[in-house]
């Protein structure tokens, strides 16, 4: 069924009636079109004479009339040039105006269906009484859950084909209730209907005296507009930090959309995952009176009393409210739309609210096999159109809520090869002792054959203890010049030293740019190479612009068990006590080299008696 509308019911911007979007879903041939056609007919939403026309046409062609034909007839009108919204149809009850989003039945259109249904406020799921729960009944149920559509009515259609047998209805209700329970949905009603006969669509049917619930139309009117989430804890994912200096504007504005809650001028706030804290100084806006607060739904901006270094992607929350969780391993439900399957050991990109972070599939718990109606265990990958529960691991910690608590910060999409290939919701964090980097290192250590030459023997021979010297800080702080001068100075003193110039090729890459695969690979390579060089007894010098705590932790894991020294040039954004030497500015390279050498000596990396 394509989209359609009825010509006398064009939605208008300033209608008195409340408006609600409903998605109608269900397995192919379970009677979705008939339910919608009957709803339109029984609510007098069809163009005048349309019903009679179609009935007459059926009679002429000696075929039985079906309500689904009404939709086809309207589709013809579409081709004849009536203004039609291609994915929606409209009807109204006494209570409100409805936009019916029609979910394509064919599986190839699932990504289009998702784009449309993601905007629905409630859903009607149609199940054939005779066929029972089928492939797409389950798949669509999963999708509703994932899309965050909580208000659902299940319509058991074609009851006339099972002689209005209450036990058939009860069996489907029991089976499907159990399934929906697993995906966290409780249907508001199960309604036995025959759309063809009009039973329980807009009027109560004498054929189902055992049923005491509402009609389909009543059930729609019983849906409630979900209030905007102002009562939930404040969550404002940081979209960007603006500092526009034109015309002496000195505001540094943290910009984002408030997804839930309220925050006021003077509130103490925390940025997660970094944990930085500050206080809201102003709520900013353009062509607006002075704002005292920012509420859910607004795209706004804040200035802070104390300047903190935060990055886009962090979530700004209130200190006095329940905080999001922070972690790298997430148990999720995922729906995969990618052309290629979701596989392990491949780097993808996760987008969660405004955060973008590399992610890997770590473990597949269960995959819903929609055709077999079973849950498959022991699957290694997730195929197109699969819905699965799995564990994801991100490169760096992300801040998130469980989707059941706050929807907007509890869901994500996965990018594969530039495309949004999957969507999912976070069930809970996973507590794990290891991560994929550590597992790789454990594997490496296991297969590593040690020789007779120990680290101490090498230290004695070279007159130094090996270490990785990392020079960090923002770009253009003179780190590379210092690194080269340091290498030269140590070399001239007879030290076994090497400056790893890899970073030169990546000079333009800093941590503030979008998640960069190159950077990620560079850091991994640095960790691995460092492990080799330091194991061989060398002092290795490397520079990394904008290194953060998580990246440092990864390098350390890979470099284990060798040591490292962190020398920071310029603004220091590391956690307390991370930096071994802080150089605010390199005015004199020679002096900076001396500082680093003094550090190496005082930490006993340069063995003095050798000199």
């Amino acid at each position, binding site marked *: 069924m394509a989209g359609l509308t009825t010509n006398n019911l064009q939605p208008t911007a300033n209608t008195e009636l409340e408006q609600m979007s409903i998605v109608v879903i269900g397995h192919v041939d379970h009677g979705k079109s008939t339910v919608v056609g009957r709803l339109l007919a029984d609510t007098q939403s069809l163009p005048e004479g349309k019903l009679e026309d179609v009935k007459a046409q059926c009679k002429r062609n000696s075929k039985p009339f079906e309500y689904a034909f009404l939709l086809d007839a309207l589709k013809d009108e579409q081709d004849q040039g009536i203004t039609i919204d291609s994915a929606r149809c409209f009807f109204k009850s006494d209570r409100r105006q409805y936009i019916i989003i029609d979910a394509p039945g064919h599986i190839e259109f699932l990504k289009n269906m998702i784009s449309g249904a993601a905007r629905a406020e409630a859903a009607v799921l149609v199940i054939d009484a005779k066929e029972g729960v089928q492939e797409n009944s389950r798949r669509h149920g999963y999708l509703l859950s994932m899309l965050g559509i909580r208000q659902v009515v299940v319509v058991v259609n074609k009851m006339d084909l099972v002689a209005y047998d209450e036990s058939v209805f009860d069996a489907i209700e029991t089976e499907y209730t159990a399934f929906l329970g697993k995906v966290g949905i409780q249907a508001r009603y199960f309604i036995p209907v025959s759309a063809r006969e009009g039973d329980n669509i807009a009027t109560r049917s004498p054929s189902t005296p055992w049923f005491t619930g509402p009609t389909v139309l009543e059930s729609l009117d019983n849906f409630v507009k979900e209030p905007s989430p102002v009562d939930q804890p404040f969550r404002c994912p940081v979209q*960007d930090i603006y500092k*526009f200096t034109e015309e002496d504007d000195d505001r540094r504005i943290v910009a984002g959309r408030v997804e839930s809650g309220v925050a006021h001028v003077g509130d103490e706030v925390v940025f997660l995952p970094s944990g930085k804290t500050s206080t809201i100084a102003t709520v900013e806006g353009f062509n607006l009176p002075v704002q005292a607060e920012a509420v859910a739904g607004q795209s706004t901006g804040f200035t802070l009393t104390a300047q903190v270094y935060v990055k886009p992607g962090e979530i700004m929350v209130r200190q006095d409210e329940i905080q999001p969780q922070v972690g790298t391993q997430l148990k999720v439900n995922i729906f995969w739309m990618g052309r290629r399957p979701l596989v392990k050991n491949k780097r993808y*990109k996760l*987008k969660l609210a405004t955060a973008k972070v590399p992610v890997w599939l770590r473990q597949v718990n269960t995959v819903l096999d929609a055709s077999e109606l079973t849950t498959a265990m022991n699957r290694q990958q997730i195929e197109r159109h699969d819905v699965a529960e799995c564990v994801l691991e991100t490169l760096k910690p992300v801040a998130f809520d469980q989707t059941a608590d706050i929807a907007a910060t509890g*869901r994500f999409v996965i990018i594969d090869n530039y495309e*949004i290939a999957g969507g999912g919701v976070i069930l809970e964090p996973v507590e794990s002792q290891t991560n994929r980097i550590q597992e790789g290192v454990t594997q490496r250590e296991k297969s590593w054959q040690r020789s007779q030459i120990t680290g101490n023997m090498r230290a004695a021979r070279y007159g130094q203890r090996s270490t990785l010297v990392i020079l960090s800080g923002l770009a253009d702080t003179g780190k590379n010049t210092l690194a080269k001068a340091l290498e030269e100075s140590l070399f001239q003193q007879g030290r076994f030293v090497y400056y790893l110039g890899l970073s030169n090729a990546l000079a333009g890459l800093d941590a503030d740019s979008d998640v960069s695969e190159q950077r990620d690979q560079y850091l991994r390579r640095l960790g691995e190479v460092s492990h080799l060089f330091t194991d061989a007894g060398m002092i290795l010098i490397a520079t990394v612009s904008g290194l953060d705590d998580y990246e440092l932790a990864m390098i350390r894991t890979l470099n284990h068990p060798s040591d490292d020294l962190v020398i920071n040039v310029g603004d220091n954004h590391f956690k307390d006590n991370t930096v071994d030497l802080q150089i605010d500015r390199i005015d004199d390279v020679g002096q900076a080299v001396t500082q680093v050498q003094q550090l190496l000596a005082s930490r006993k990396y340069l063995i003095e008696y050798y000199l």
Partner: protein
Amino acid sequence: MDQLEQLEAQSIYILREAYRSFKQLVMLWSIGKDSTVLLWLARKAFFGHVPIPLMHIDTSFKVPAMIEYRDRFALQWKLNMIVGQNEVALKNKQTFPDGNATRIECCQALKSEALKHTLSGEWPRWILNHDTGNYDRVEGGEAFTGVIVGARADEEGSRSKERYFSPRDQHNEWDVGDQPPELWNQFKTDFAPGTHVRIHPLLDWTELNIWEYIERENIPIIDLYFDKGEGKRYRSLGCQTCTSSVCSSSSSVTAIIEELQSGKFSNIAERSGREQDKEDGGGLESLRKGGYM
């Protein structure tokens, strides 16, 4: 939040997402009401600043008042203003007003081609010099990979199929059937080299919403939309030769809103004064596939 506030918040979110995601980003400004609202939304999104360059494709047949208006606000709002033009077609007079091309061919040459090559940097760009107030010709500009456009879904059939972030391939082609999914405000902000993305922050707005917002925000819209006592005004702006005025005595934003809600235009398409729409079987789809905005 009322409907306009929700639309505004969503458009601002989209603009900021575009600004964050695309290094080579540009916004098209036709001087019409939609892209002027878009420009205003950018000032909202970026707190009074417009950190995104604006591009205007000048066919040379625009109503002179449009160019005057463009330059006045470009200077006043300190806009990074880029103008593009099909120099060759104009020089060879391969245009409809010169009698050497059909309306569609003319649109294709002066708008689609000019836009495509100005975006890619193959053709020269004229950049407003804020010191002199003149435009400097600049060659060899970088290609823009993100293009913000003021299209609305309700304008015309093919636009209702757009996404907020809509990819185009190397040939500017638009694959209507195979568009990326958009859910939970996650858009396609990743793109392969050689491709670019059209960004549509106004997709959910209707013509009425636009006027209501102009009224609420008191946006200085070009006065060609208003009747100045002759009983005529423009409802949609374009080239002088192909855009006719409509009979209407609405001389203020409030009057236009009234006219759209219940008056004579409540059932007449907005682009009814645009002749090129009619020449191609009534749809803009073939023009749009080739890059028309």
